[in-house]
């Protein structure tokens, strides 16, 4: 390897990163300091005025809260269900390989397919769920029409789509826990539940920490599920920061404010991740 090769190889990566990631990000943040009614008009410097406006608006706080509720509940359900499925799929039974494969399928579906399928299943007149519930004499559910139901629906779809990620990751982790630890715990008198809390969970804590972090960040920034189902409605009940940012920038053509929302969202998430790492260090205390 000659002397110029190392910088040359590095340069490729650095240039790609600068052009495709750093550049647009800096540009997006810089937009938040300008008034820009459309992408073709000349930007007017307004300083922090957009931030003042955003922080003073009820819409922003509503969206932030919705984002926290949506991401929080979705993560809790994904993790609890994901771990439960992983524990079941870890047991030996006939056809386990097949079931394991099927359990991963939802994760492979494009979001739009999953969302459209769900909407179709709960369609007010033709949906299979609607028809079955009617047959059983249950009252109809207005899946996307009432404020609480809409939030629950988008959470359910998200859980259905992304629980397999937790299941698969945790299952991979389960296979690395030494069998002898379980046997030692059995001899020590720990039943299945105590073995889970005293062996499985502590041993897999690093994996779980990463799962919750990744899923948390992804859910907080998740755009497509909500956009394709409720679009943020009804009455802003499912509008979170990505939707608010998009709607402000591209529906109301206030690009500066949209950029300010996105920037605040980014800062909030950075702070949350920082606190998360403080609370759950990746390395065990030595």
């Amino acid at each position, binding site marked *: 390897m000659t002397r110029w090769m190392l910088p040359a190889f590095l340069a490729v990566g650095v240039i790609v990163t600068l052009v495709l990631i750093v550049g647009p990000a800096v540009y997006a943040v810089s937009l938040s300091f300008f008034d820009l009614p459309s992408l073709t008009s000349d930007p007017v410097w307004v300083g922090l005025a957009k931030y003042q406006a955003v922080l003073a608006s009820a819409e922003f706080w509503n969206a932030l809260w919705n984002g926290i509720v949506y991401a929080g509940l979705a993560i809790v359900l994904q993790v609890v269900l994901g771990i439960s499925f992983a524990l079941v799929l870890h047991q030996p039974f006939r056809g386990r390989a097949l079931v394991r494969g099927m359990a991963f399928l939802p994760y492979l579906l494009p979001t739009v397919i999953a969302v459209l399928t769900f909407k179709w299943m709960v369609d007010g007149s033709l949906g299979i769920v609607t028809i079955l519930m009617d047959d059983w004499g249950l009252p109809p559910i207005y899946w996307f029409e009432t404020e609480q139901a809409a939030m629950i629906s988008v959470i359910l779809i998200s859980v259905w789509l992304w629980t397999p990620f937790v299941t698969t990751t945790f299952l991979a982790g389960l296979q690395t826990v*030494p069998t*002898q*630890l379980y*046997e*030692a*715990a*059995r*001899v*020590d*008198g*720990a039943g299945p539940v*105590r073995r889970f809390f*005293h*062996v499985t969970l*502590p*041993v897999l*804590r690093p994996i779980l920490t990463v799962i919750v972090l990744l899923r948390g960040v992804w859910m907080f920034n998740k755009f497509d599920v909500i956009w394709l189902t409720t679009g943020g409605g009804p009455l802003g009940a499912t509008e979170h920061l990505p939707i608010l940012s998009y709607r402000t920038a591209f529906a109301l053509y206030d690009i500066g404010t949209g950029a300010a929302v996105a920037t605040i969202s980014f800062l909030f998430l950075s702070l949350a991740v920082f606190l998360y790492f403080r609370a759950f260090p990746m390395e*065990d205390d*030595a």
Partner: protein
Amino acid sequence: MAEVSLRNLRKTYGGVTAVEGVNLDIAKGELIVLLGPSGCGKSTTLRMVAGLESISGGELFIGGRDVTNLEPKDRDIAMVFQNYALYPHKTIRANLGFGLKMRGMTTADTARRVDEVAEMLAITHLLDRKPRQLSGGQMQRVALGRALVRDPAVFLLDEPLSNLDAKLRVRMREEIALLQKRIGKAMVYVTHDQTEAMTLADRIVIMRDGHVQQIGAPLEVYDRPRNVFVAGFIGSPEMNLFPAEIGEGRLRMGPSDDLSLPVPSGAPDGPVIAGVRPEALFVAGEGIPFAVRAVEQLGSQTLLIGRIGEHQLRVMEDRRDDIRAGDTVHVSADPAGIHLFDKETELRLALSASAEPARD
């Protein structure tokens, strides 16, 4: 009354038999070693006693109770695993106390008991550390401690020293022996290392392919191996085993007359498998010509490896500085040191009692 009783214990997986009919009574304070090559069923047998493997047939009694179908925790046993199996996220103190906590012992009693055992094993200074901050030998002590804390009727040890280096293994072996005598409980110890078995055991159970080959005190199986397998497995360096013919009061190792050794009296004429320990052969002024091919110096002893006729043999001498590879010497044997086995069944041939081989 035996503390632990294995009655015709069997283990099958599908159609495959892993352990066939083990019968064994273990007295209180007795140290039993299950010995054999890998896959012989010794670990499976231990795990059946522990309750970690279900018992396919037969019965198991511990402390007079039928525990054949009980969970490990209800059997009054404690186990030491090959890889220690310490809970990695718990402190040593918590590791030691876990079994007591699971059994509902109060915090104060647990602490007292843990301190007692830690002191006995000289690991008090390690109590607040985590397992990965410990050396192999220290982890081994903790693993022993976790078993001791529980004060069970029987201790089960599954190749506990195999992860330690040679020097430490010898030291821990001595410690285990002393500890076991001190606490006076029954112990079942699995190993594939015949030296460990010889040095530790009150009785050795030698297994092969799921079958018990012989049960006996170390010197008993050393002096009177029941078959060719035991003869070859016990003793280091290995016993010389070769086909031979008995005739005219001599053990013939080859076609020519000079390749023969004296035989124990009472041996029947005919083809046999003969066994002579390297230490039962000696270099003498006259005897069988022995072409030395290699000389291994062990310090106080010298191991000669060479050929007699077409057989490769080992001869153990007290230290000799004068024999080199390439030399030919003459060797002979004490008839009492020659073991004879049936050529077909490989079982030890019964001789008249007076002629039984014995070490003096």
